[in-house]
C-alpha cells in the first residue's frame, strides 16, 4: 500500500496535477507519524508513511489548505471520507481543489494498548500477518493485531468510501452490525446515579487541553466560544468542578448531527476519556427519534436537528413516555 500511495503521489506532483499532497510523515518511533503537506517528490520518497499506525484523519487540514488555493491531493481512509463530505456540506472546503485518493484501511493499531501490555522500550514494530512483532530493548513480543487495535477500528462503521476520485486498494461495505452503540446501550441501562458516577469519573480527568476540540473536523468555527475571553468562560480552566463536564456536553450538542463518529476526539485525548460515547449517545438518540441518519454519508441531506418534518417527534414527550418514541 505505502509504495503504491507514495508512487501515485509522486506521479501527481511531478505531472503538475496537484501542487501538494496531504499525507503522513514518518515519526521518531516505529509507531508515530505526523500529518504533513508534501510539496516535494524527494520528501515524499524519503518520509511518506502509511502503515498500521497512520491514524490521524487528514480531512480537517484541508480547511486551512483550501484557503491557500492551488490543487491538492489527499489520502482518506473510509472513516475520513465521512468527515470530508461533512466539511463539504458545511462549505468549509472547496471540492474542486481537492483530488481525493480513497485508501483501503484494515484498522489502525493503538500504541497505548501495546504499552498497556507492559511493553516498553520499543525500538521496532513489524507486521507479520495477523500479528505484530514488537521489538524492544527488553526483548521481542508478539501479539495479535486485533488485541491492540484502536477502539474506533474495532467498531468500524464502514469500510466503504463515501467519496473518492480514485482508489488505492479496495473499498468495502458499510457495517450496520459493527456494535458501536453497544457501550452506549450499557450506559443507558445504568441507573441515573451510576451513569452520573461513570461520567464524573471519566470527565473529571479532563485537563482542558482542547485537543479533542482542535482535532475535530466538525469543530471548524473561526473562533470557538471557549476561546473568546469576552464570553465570560475560560477555555483552559474549569471554574467549578462541574465545568469540564459542561464543556463536553456543550461540544457534544454543537456537533450533534454533524459528528460523523470519526473517533479522532477519543484518539487524541491525553487522558484517555471515551468522548466517542457522548457523541454516539447523540447519534443513537437521533437515529431512534428521527430515523437513521449518518453524518457525512452525502453532501446534501439535512441533518435531523436542522430539518423539520410534520411528523417529527417531540423529545420532551418521548422523555415523558420513558424514552420510547
Amino acid at each position, binding site marked *: 500500500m505505502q509504495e503504491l500511495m507514495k508512487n501515485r503521489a509522486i506521479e501527481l506532483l511531478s505531472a503538475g496535477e496537484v501542487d501538494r499532497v496531504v499525507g503522513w510523515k514518518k515519526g521518531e518511533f516505529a509507531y508515530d507519524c*505526523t500529518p504533513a503537506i508534501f510539496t516535494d517528490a524527494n520528501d515524499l520518497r524519503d518520509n511518506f508513511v502509511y502503515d498500521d499506525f497512520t491514524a490521524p484523519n487528514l480531512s480537517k487540514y484541508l480547511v486551512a489548505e483550501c484557503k491557500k488555493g492551488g490543487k491538492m491531493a489527499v489520502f482518506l481512509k473510509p472513516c475520513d471520507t465521512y468527515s470530508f463530505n461533512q466539511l463539504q456540506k458545511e462549505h468549509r472546503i472547496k471540492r474542486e481543489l481537492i483530488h481525493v485518493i480513497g485508501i483501503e484501511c484494515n484498522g489502525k493499531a493503538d500504541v497505548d494498548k501495546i504499552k498497556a501490555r507492559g511493553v516498553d522500550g520499543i525500538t521496532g514494530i513489524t507486521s507479520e500477518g495477523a500479528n505484530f512483532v514488537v521489538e524492544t530493548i527488553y526483548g521481542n513480543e508478539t501479539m495479535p493485531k486485533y488485541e491492540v487495535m484502536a477502539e474506533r477500528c474495532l467498531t468500524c462503521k464502514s469500510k466503504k468510501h463515501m467519496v473518492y476520485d480514485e482508489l488505492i486498494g479496495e473499498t468495502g461495505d458499510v457495517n450496520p452490525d459493527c456494535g458501536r452503540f453497544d457501550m452506549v446501550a450499557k450506559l443507558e441501562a445504568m441507573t441515573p446515579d451510576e451513569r452520573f458516577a461513570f461520567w464524573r469519573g471519566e470527565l473529571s480527568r479532563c*485537563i*482542558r487541553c482542547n*485537543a479533542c476540540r482542535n482535532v475535530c473536523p466538525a469543530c471548524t468555527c473561526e473562533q470557538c466560544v471557549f476561546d473568546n*475571553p469576552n464570553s465570560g468562560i475560560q477555555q*483552559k480552566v474549569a471554574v467549578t468542578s462541574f465545568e469540564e463536564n459542561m464543556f463536553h456536553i456543550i461540544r457534544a450538542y454543537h456537533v450533534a448531527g454533524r459528528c460523523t463518529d470519526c473517533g479522532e476526539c477519543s484518539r487524541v485525548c*491525553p487522558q*484517555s476519556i471515551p468522548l466517542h460515547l457522548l457523541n454516539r449517545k447523540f447519534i443513537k438518540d437521533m437515529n431512534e427519534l428521527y430515523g437513521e441518519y449518518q453524518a457525512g454519508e452525502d453532501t446534501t441531506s439535512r441533518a435531523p436537528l436542522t430539518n423539520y418534518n410534520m411528523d417529527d417527534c417531540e423529545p420532551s414527550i418521548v422523555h415523558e413516555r420513558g424514552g420510547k418514541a
Partner: protein
Amino acid sequence: MKKIALSKLNDFFAAIAAEEKLYLPVDGEKGTDYKLWSEGVTYSRALNTNRSAKDFFFPQTENIVDFKREGKTIEVIDTRTEAEDFVVFGVRACDARSFGILDKVFLADPVDSFYASRRAHGTIVTMACTRPAETCFCGAFGIDMTAPEGDISCWIAEDALWLSANTEKGEALLNKVASLTEEGDTAAVDAQKAAVKEIAKKLPLQNLPTDAFKGDVLLEKFNSAKWPELSKACLGCGTCTFVCPTCQCYDVFDFDTGHGVKRARCWDSCMYSDFTKMAHGNSRNSQVERFRQRFMHKLVYFPMNNGGEFGCVGCGRCLSKCPINMNIVKVMKSLGGDAE
C-alpha cells in the same frame, strides 16, 4: 543507606500517612496517577504518571484573592490557606529535576508565596527507574535515572526498598519511620544502578545531543527556516504544555460574582491563541510563532536566563501525548543541524 523489606512497604506507608498526607502513583483503569494513600491503596511501579508531580506545587487552577464590595468599600480577602505538610512518594528522576526548574521561576524575586508555601510543606521521595521507555531522554539533560534527586531517594532492589536522605527534610521523615528501617550496605543498589545504566545505553534518545542549543544561538534558532514546516500540523491544543512538568505559564483572571470579584489563576499554554494577549492585542498571531515560543523557551530562553540549564527534563510525556506526534525531540533533531 536504610532499607525496609518490601513485605513491610504497607507499614511504611501507614507510618508516614499517620503523620501527614501521603500521595503516591496508583494504577487506574486509564494509566497511573498520584492518589492519596489510605489503607488498601497499592503503590504502582509503572514507569511514570499521566500527569506530572508538578500539580502538587503548581495546581492547574487556584483562587488567589477575593474582593467583596459593600456600598463604597471594597474588602480584599486573602483566600490562602496555609498548606499542610505532605509527602509525595515515587517521583521519577525527570520530574524531580522539574522542581528545580520551577523553583528558578517561582522562588526568584518576587517569590510566589503560593508555590513557596507548598514547596516548604512538601517532602519529595523519589524512586530510581529500572525499566525506562523509548520516550525517555532524561540523560540528554544530565539527569541520572538511577540516582533521582529529592529529599529522599529510593530504590527497589532485591526484596527491599532502599532509602537515602539527601536533605534535612528527608532526614526528618526517615527519623519518623526509624523503627521500620534497618541499615543496609549499598551493594544491591549499586548492582541495580550498573544494570540500568546498561539498559539506558540501548535507548534511542538518552544521548540526544544538546550542544546545538548552547551558547549564543538565540537569533540563529529564532530565525530558522524550519519552524513553519515543524509546526505545520500542530493543532494548537495545549496537550504538550499541560502534561509537561516544567511548563510554568499561567493566566490570571477575574470573575464577577455579582457582589464582588474572584481572582484566580490557571495554567496557560503558549500554544493557545489568547496567550499573552494584552490591551493592544496579541504578540504572536500565528501558530508558527506560538509553536516556536514553546521550544525556544525550553531550549534557548530558559537556559540563557538560568546558567545554561535547559527547561526540559526529558520525561517524554509530550512525545507520547501529542495528537500529531510533533515534539521537542523532533525540534531538537531538526534544528540541531542548523548550527555553523
